[in-house]
């Protein structure tokens, strides 16, 4: 493999990993508040469609991106309504949300299949892009990639050092204690759900605005589920999500490259790769006992007091 090809592959790794990174960061925030949202896949695809449609109507990719986040948060609010207000089972509600979200996106998006919209184009960071290898791999992308670097750092700092972040984790670990300490536990959980939904929506928006620049039904192809698995791999830590997302980005980029080059391996077998890797990653994390690091109150509703 030549040097140029290698650099191109690494750069593609970052780009392919970015939507998964957004969604994983979002699910980390949601799960830290003690809410399990299995609707990420559905939220992502609705975000992707909303971003695409708004960008198509207004001609502004930025407006599209914002709309993707907004619609992601709106759909996540349905999960909040079912789980926080109506005390529904979080696993089932999340699954239903995925079914609803994929249905909605494919239903409303069908008339727009293979239309193109304004998207984000690559933009080199001055100076930083001049660094050999690192520059061309990390700093020769669209602005949403840079935003995802920033977001990872901000969320990491936020969870670790701010009052809000510590409160969020407390609510996810021990809601009763958090309540006794005077925290508004429902407020934190709502915030966790909405921020998570917005980020998942942005992950979808990245797919339609920066990755494909067009709409196809079933655009997310299981990336939302990969994000849910990566949260466990990431130990519920934002910076480790970066690692996991780029691992998947690498495998997916490699697989597309192989397909484009025309190998003898049947495409159905190649397409299995990311899903096989998800299982491997999950088995690895569980084997290391990472599952124990989950927020203690994850998936458990707070019963209303009499």
């Amino acid at each position, binding site marked *: 493999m030549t040097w140029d090809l290698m650099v191109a592959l690494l750069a593609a790794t970052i780009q392919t990993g970015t939507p998964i990174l957004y969604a994983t960061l979002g699910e980390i925030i949601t799960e830290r508040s003690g809410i399990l949202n*299995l609707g990420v896949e*559905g939220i992502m695809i609705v975000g992707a469609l909303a971003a695409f449609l708004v960008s198509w109507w207004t001609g502004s990719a930025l407006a599209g991106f914002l709309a993707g986040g907004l619609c992601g948060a709106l759909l996540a609010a*349905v999960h909040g*309504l*079912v789980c926080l*207000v*109506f*005390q*529904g*089972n979080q*696993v*089932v*509600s999340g*699954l*239903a*949300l*995925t*079914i*609803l*979200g*994929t*249905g*909605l*996106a*494919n*239903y*409303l998006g*069908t*008339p727009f299949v293979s239309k193109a919209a304004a998207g984000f184009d690559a933009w080199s960071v001055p100076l930083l892009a001049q660094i050999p290898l690192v520059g061309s791999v990390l700093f020769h992308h669209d602005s949403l990639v840079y935003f995802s670097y920033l977001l990872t750092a901000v969320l990491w700092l936020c969870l670790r050092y701010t009052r809000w972040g510590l409160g969020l984790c407390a609510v996810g670990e021990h809601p009763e204690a958090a309540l006794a300490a005077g925290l508004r536990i429902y407020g934190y959980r709502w915030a966790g759900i909405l921020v998570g939904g917005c980020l998942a929506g942005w992950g979808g928006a990245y797919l339609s605005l920066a990755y494909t620049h067009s709409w196809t*039904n079933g655009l997310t192809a*299981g990336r939302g*589920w990969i994000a*849910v*698995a990566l949260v*466990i791999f990431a130990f519920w830590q934002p910076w480790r999500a970066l690692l996991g997302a780029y691992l998947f980005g690498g495998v997916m980029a490699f697989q597309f490259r192989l397909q484009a080059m025309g190998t003898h391996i*049947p495409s*159905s*077998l190649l*397409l*299995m790769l990311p*899903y*096989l890797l*998800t*299982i491997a990653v*999950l*088995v690895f*994390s*569980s*084997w290391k006992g990472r*599952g124990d690091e989950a927020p203690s109150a994850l998936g458990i509703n707070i*019963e*209303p007091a*009499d």
Partner: protein
Amino acid sequence: MVRLSIHKRQAPLGWGACFVFLGAVAVSLVLSGILLRIQGKPAVAGIWLLIRSAYFSVYAVEDCLIKAVPIFLCSLGVAFAFRLQVWNIGAEGQYALGAVGASWAALTFPDLPGYILLPLMLLSASVAGGLWSFIPAFLRNKLRANEIIITLMLNYIGIFFLEYLVYGPWKDPTSFGFPMTKNFSAPAVVGTIGQTRLSWGLVVCILAGIASWIFFRFTRLGFELKASGDNPRAAQYARLPYTRLVAIVMVLSGMLAGWAGLLEASANLNRLQPSIMAGYGYTAIVVAWLASLNPLLIGLASFLLAGLRVGLEILQLDLQVPAAFGSILEGLILLTVLAGGFFTRYRLELRRRP
């Protein structure tokens, strides 16, 4: 000032639960009517057409029953696992593997007589489906790996495996390039009952439903399952073999989904082709939860949700509604019923503050 307070119900709601359920379904139908309107289709007439063309003729009801067979079997399996609070989302993949297993037997031994070939297909479908669901059970028991994600990933892998087979080694050379296997030989086809279009699969469903009702009600293992599901910690104190139960339940679950795959390939399509993956495995989850995991109610709910698919086909033809409308309906119904469950467990009180 009016104040709203929430109280836990002491006694179960009984018949009131039916009204909550119907109310939830009504809400989701209204919402989906609005969605029809958004795409410029008639809302009320559309929903009415959906319901009428699903349940209001003998031909439609036959269609419903045909589609209800795979949904019912998958759902019964899923309900076994959910009972134990094991989240088997993998019925779709187990169904695919069951179809692959059955097709393997049917294509390898086409000349065997039916009374040997069909049991052989049943065996290979059970092994393939059961193995596919044993993987997540094993990983959960040994490593505490999250079964939700593993079963889901196995769905994708199973479907790609099926596609690999029908696009590659199993493709019928005379199919003009279409991805499908050769037609099954006559002994490998599950026949129809009398003059109807219904296959003997329906009888399999009824037997499986009765068997699982008896299983939960009268057998020791069934009791252990229910007890462990209701309260895992208490079950561990009572020294119930929890990990073994998980494995048993998952394998049973996968076998039932595998049978669904077998029946769909053999009785309905008479071959293996990608269109066999119609999302029955996901509908099965919706059904299981709507029926609160009760085998008899699962029968009713499978029939009703199969009806939505039948009605949707007419909606697609007459009003050009995209097929994804079906997922919207299923998702909405599940969400509203889930939310409606609140009113069966809690009661609200409005009190005027002095």
